[in-house]
């Protein structure tokens, strides 16, 4: 049993999805989805513990030996990402019960959980696999299901957002496919570890450079790197609340993981950062993304859209850590992947509660909601403080490490910029807080109650995680450090 954990991680949700399709009964599907996502979290945690104790786990599918067969590899880096994805999934599934019930027509609810499970299976699969083509397959499983999930939003704009995401996402995935094809053409292998070996003598090849470009740009589209982010704000803003939470916490993080995996493990540090100006390029895009998207976020009047723009800005911080090309910078970037997942999940969870009661997330609609839903908005405020980076929250820890990494490089203007742009986050979080607490509710509104417990508990788990990982930092900081050291050490 224990040795088969890597495959169980993916196959459980993958099998549960068609089971739900056959059942179709809303409550049963919800129960299956919830249990499966909790099992997935348990498996992910067991895998991470195993990896931290010993070395990397290699699992050969169907006993086909590695470079020929498909291999699942769990090391410190993707063990960490698996836990993030599975944890967000485990929090979203129970939350979805009431949220989905209120936002989707009855006959679609069963199908919602089918798509959710497929998306979870795809994201976990991308993370765990050690085969470059397998990444593409799982990428499309998760993408296709997320297009369908987004299109289930209540407003017709959700359809348009899903269509735009479909076009952009398919271009991104096809770019990735071209890159993998070019690599296969040069090396004759698809196994990542084998690719790394075979690519070493080919560093000067123009085809390998083209492959690198296609893969980084393709995943950049899925990751919503600054100029390629146009699909994201609409997709997150108009998707059903539970979907916004799930995608905001997982999808872009997994894409960033793929970029890291290819940059460090497959192509190698030398090739990526010394052979070509990846560091400066990422630095420029990250800084531009942080500044522009934070400013755009300030001018949004729909809170979910505001949070989505802030997500693009926060992706900039993760890339900033990567662009330093140092172990400390990478560690800060990885920490921010983790922290941003719990921060944004918390914020979107709170907005889902508000949407359940008010049917809208517009700033004028949520006026005065802080007095009527104190627990929800208190959760929002605490996660918002974490987003800004106020101690003692998780957001502070990753910003702190980012500033340290910038100073270590001697790039004090970048360090100053990290602090200054946090002030922009203060502005947009304040806009929501001001509307929720300091404005009178619109005259037409009746009394509304607090969100149901089944939604408040997941929200406060996220809030608790934000506070816990702000105070008790040894756990995730050490894992991020070990993962960063492993990535950098593998090549130096």
């Amino acid at each position: 049993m224990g040795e088969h954990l890597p495959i169980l991680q993916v196959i459980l949700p993958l099998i549960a999805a068609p089971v739900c399709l056959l059942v179709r009964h809303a409550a049963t599907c919800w129960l299956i989805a919830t249990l499966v996502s909790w099992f997935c979290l348990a498996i992910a945690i067991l895998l991470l513990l195993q990896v931290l104790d010993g070395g990397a786990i290699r699992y050969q599918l169907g006993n086909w030996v590695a470079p020929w067969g498909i291999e699942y590899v769990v090391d410190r880096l993707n063990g960490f990402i698996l836990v993030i994805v599975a944890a967000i999934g485990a929090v979203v599934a129970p939350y979805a019960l009431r949220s989905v019930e209120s936002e989707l027509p009855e006959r679609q609810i069963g199908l919602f959980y089918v798509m959710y499970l497929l998306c979870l299976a795809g994201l976990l699969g991308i993370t765990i696999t050690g085969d470059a083509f397998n990444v593409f397959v799982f990428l499309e499983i998760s993408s296709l299901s997320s297009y369908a999930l987004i299109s289930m939003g209540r407003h017709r704009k959700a359809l348009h957002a899903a269509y735009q995401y479909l076009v952009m996402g398919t271009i991104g995935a096809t770019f990735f496919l071209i890159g993998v094809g070019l690599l296969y053409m040069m090396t004759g292998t698809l196994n990542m570890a084998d690719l790394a070996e075979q690519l070493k003598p080919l560093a000067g090849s123009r085809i390998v450079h083209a492959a690198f470009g296609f893969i980084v740009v393709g995943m950049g589209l899925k990751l919503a790197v600054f100029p390629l982010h146009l699909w994201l704000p609409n997709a997150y803003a108009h998707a059903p609340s539970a979907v916004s939470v799930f995608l905001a916490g997982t999808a872009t993080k997994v894409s960033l993981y793929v970029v890291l995996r290819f940059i460090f493990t497959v192509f190698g540090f030398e090739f990526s950062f010394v052979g070509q100006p990846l560091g400066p390029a990422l630095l420029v895009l990250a800084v531009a993304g942080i500044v522009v998207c934070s400013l755009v976020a300030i001018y949004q009047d729909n809170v979910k859209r505001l949070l989505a723009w802030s997500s693009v800005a926060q992706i900039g911080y993760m890339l900033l850590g990567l662009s330093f090309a140092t172990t400390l910078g990478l560690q800060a970037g990885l920490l921010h992947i983790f922290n941003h997942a719990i921060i944004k999940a918390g914020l979107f969870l709170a907005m889902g509660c508000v949407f359940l009661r008010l049917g809208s997330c517009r700033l004028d609609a949520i006026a005065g909601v802080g007095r009527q839903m104190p627990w929800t908005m208190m959760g929002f405020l605490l996660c918002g403080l974490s987003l800004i980076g106020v101690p003692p929250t998780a957001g502070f820890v990753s910003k702190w490490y980012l500033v340290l990494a910038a100073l270590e490089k001697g790039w004090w203007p970048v360090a100053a910029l990290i602090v200054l742009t946090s002030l922009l986050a203060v502005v947009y979080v304040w806009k929501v807080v001001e509307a929720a607490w300091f404005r009178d509710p619109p005259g037409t509104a009746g009394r509304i109650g607090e969100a149901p417990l089944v939604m408040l508990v997941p929200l406060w788990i996220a809030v608790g995680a934000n506070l816990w990982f702000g105070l008790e930092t040894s756990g995730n900081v050490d894992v991020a450090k070990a993962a960063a050291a492993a990535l950098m050490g593998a090549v130096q």
Partner: protein
Amino acid sequence: MWESFLGLYNYWIVILLMMAGFYIVMSRHNLVKKLIGLNIFQSSVFLFYISVGKVADGTAPIIEKGIFSYSNPLPHVLILTAIVVGVATTSLGLALVVRLKEAYGTIEEDEINEMDAAD
């Protein structure tokens, strides 16, 4: 010069189709035309993979007496998967276009954008 240029003709076709498809996706406002562009773009990648699998003088990868040189079957198999993905993407995209037409009454993206901006 000319020989290597003509000898790589399948790659030239790949590049031509790729750019044509990509251009259609970006420049057309009709949602169905965009999907067709996307399809052409993906098809070029299918051709690319199949070209990669070709071994000079190789035949179809079926074991047969007296034949020693086979084309590499792996890219063929890979691209079968990618074709299935492409079909799924196209059908999902078309389903979305049908729903968009029902919701907005048009499949021209600029008109949809105007209606989105209005409400």
